[in-house]
């Protein structure tokens, strides 16, 4: 009987020693964070609570879609931040609002903010404030800069 138990115990012990230790994957080494050097803030002066529908603004840089602000009430400050290569950049903004059925649709072309160049400088945060009035039919663009931290 003893002769049977001993080999069995030895076999069990041998199988345990062969089990692999599972280790968590090594953490990814931290990457360098690219600081945003460009910020667009869109806001609208609405005339009533009913007019304060959801809207957002698409941002095109040098004729390419670079991003869009978050969607939110038109009277709220909706922002988009990005990192643009320094230089004189051609910016175009496209305002979108909720259509009759709630689906987003762009404002008519004649009411869209006009295309214009904005200089993005190295070491500066270029801030563009896009202020809509008159039901979104008029807009004023202000450009400001502040040093990057």
């Amino acid at each position, binding site marked *: 009987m003893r002769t049977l138990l001993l080999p069995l115990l030895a076999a069990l012990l041998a199988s345990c020693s062969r089990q692999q230790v599972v280790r968590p994957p090594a953490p990814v080494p931290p990457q360098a964070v690219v600081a945003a050097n460009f910020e667009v803030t869109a806001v609208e002066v609405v005339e009533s609570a009913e007019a304060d529908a959801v809207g957002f603004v698409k941002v095109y840089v040098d004729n390419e879609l670079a991003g869009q602000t978050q969607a939110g009430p038109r009277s709220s400050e909706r922002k988009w931040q990005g990192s643009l290569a320094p230089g004189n950049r*051609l910016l175009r903004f496209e305002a979108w609002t909720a259509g009759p059925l709630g689906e987003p649709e762009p404002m008519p072309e*004649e009411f869209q903010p*006009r*295309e*214009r*160049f904005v*200089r993005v400088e190295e070491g500066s945060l270029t801030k563009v404030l896009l202020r809509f009035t008159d039901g979104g039919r008029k807009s*004023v663009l202000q450009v400001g800069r502040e040093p990057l931290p």
Partner: protein
Amino acid sequence: MTKPGRPLLLLLALSLCACGKSREKEPNDHFTNATPLRPGASVRGTVASPGDVDVYKVDVGREGALSFRLSGIKDVDFAASWQDHDRQELKKFNETGAGGDEEGLDLGVSAGLYYLAVSNRNAKANNPKQEYVLDIKLEPGPGSESEPNDTALAASTLTVGGVTRGHYFPSRNLLAATTDQVEEDWFRVTVDREGMFSLNVDVSEVPGVDGVLEVYDTANFYKIKEVDSAGPGEPEILRNFGLRGPVQYLMRLRSKTRAANAMAPYEILTELLPYSGTTEFEPNDQRLDATPFTGDSITGTLSPAADEDWYRVPVETSDKRILTLSLSALKGMDLVMLVTDDLGNTILAVDNAGKESPETMTGLGVSTGTFHVAVSEKSRRASDSRKSYTLSKTLSPFQAGLEFELNDSSETAQALKVGESLDGYMAPKGDVDWYEFNVYQGADVSLEVTGVLNVKFLLTLFDQEYQELLGAAAARPGEGVSFQRRLEPGTYFLRLQPAEPGQNNVRDKYTLRLKAQ
């Protein structure tokens, strides 16, 4: 006829005349023993002592306007007073001094008894022999003022669509509750019909009297309008007073300087017309009361001095439109226009020309909204209720190649593309036009502005950071200006302005050309 017969005939004639006038019956110093008198009759009387009072009881058989005339007596300073059958004093007269005649006009009466008390105000009067003559007259009531109409509550009825007569008389209201004793005639204007109407009122001239006409609402006697554009001996005219019937208004007519005239009556001629939308709808003296201006033109008058006429211009299309306004000239006046948004914020002040010249707003870019136009006289002293101005407007679709005002600042600069041209006005006075364009590839860009009469142009180019790059001036007024410059990709701004803010031209457009070489 023999000579001795002549005195006899004269005596007979005199005695016949005397028979036509009855005599007072003394004692008649109290209403209980008043001398009876009928309208149309005359009575003779004397002032036996300085304190003598003669009371007459006038039995009026019908409704009308009762008047009296009392001939003067040497040394006696007459005063006379009307009382109703309850001896309530209605109107008091003391216009003249010792020896003068007294007169009382336009007492509104209905059938019944009225009392006239004649007294003397001169304590030293001593002329018991000389007789006075008192004449009483009753005229039909309708079409006449009805004294005492000295307060709003006692206003007479004004005949709408007809003539109402009255007098700036007496010079003082001796029964007034106030110390200034202003004599005033109040009238009630009633329009029973439903609808919108224009009321025109002409108050005739009265020699020596400078009339003032005022309009009050009946709810709280708030003065809505005052007409005092003419001087003494001239008529006063109220034009295009808007009424939304059924409605009542009150009018007050008074002499500005206390001058009175018992001889010449005033006549108030009223005309009530259905409102056609082609005239102002007074009172439109403030934005909230603006007259709707939906047609092509509308007429109005500026009276009294400092009158301001507001018009509401609705724009119901969301398409871009160009609104133009033209205002005709008025003799002796320098008219100006103010254009505001719906909240009253000033958009444009139009004062291009001087006295007796028309004014023009060459173009304002608009889309859906409500705009207001206020027409006024610059000095705020001149007025003329007889002459009307005409305000005309056009609302035409915007077309590419036209200026779209307001483009008076860099913030509201109008977009332009290289290779395009644009026509615009350097108006109104003080106008500055800003344009904005993009250069996508570096190029030599030429800018050219054609000249317009009376304007010496200054043209300035700015980069996208609003740094001035280049400036050029026309050699002289009426000449164009241009320059050329290599421009790198970027956004540029162009400012066009006259050398002096007063230079403008509402007739000729300039053309701005932007070309890449």
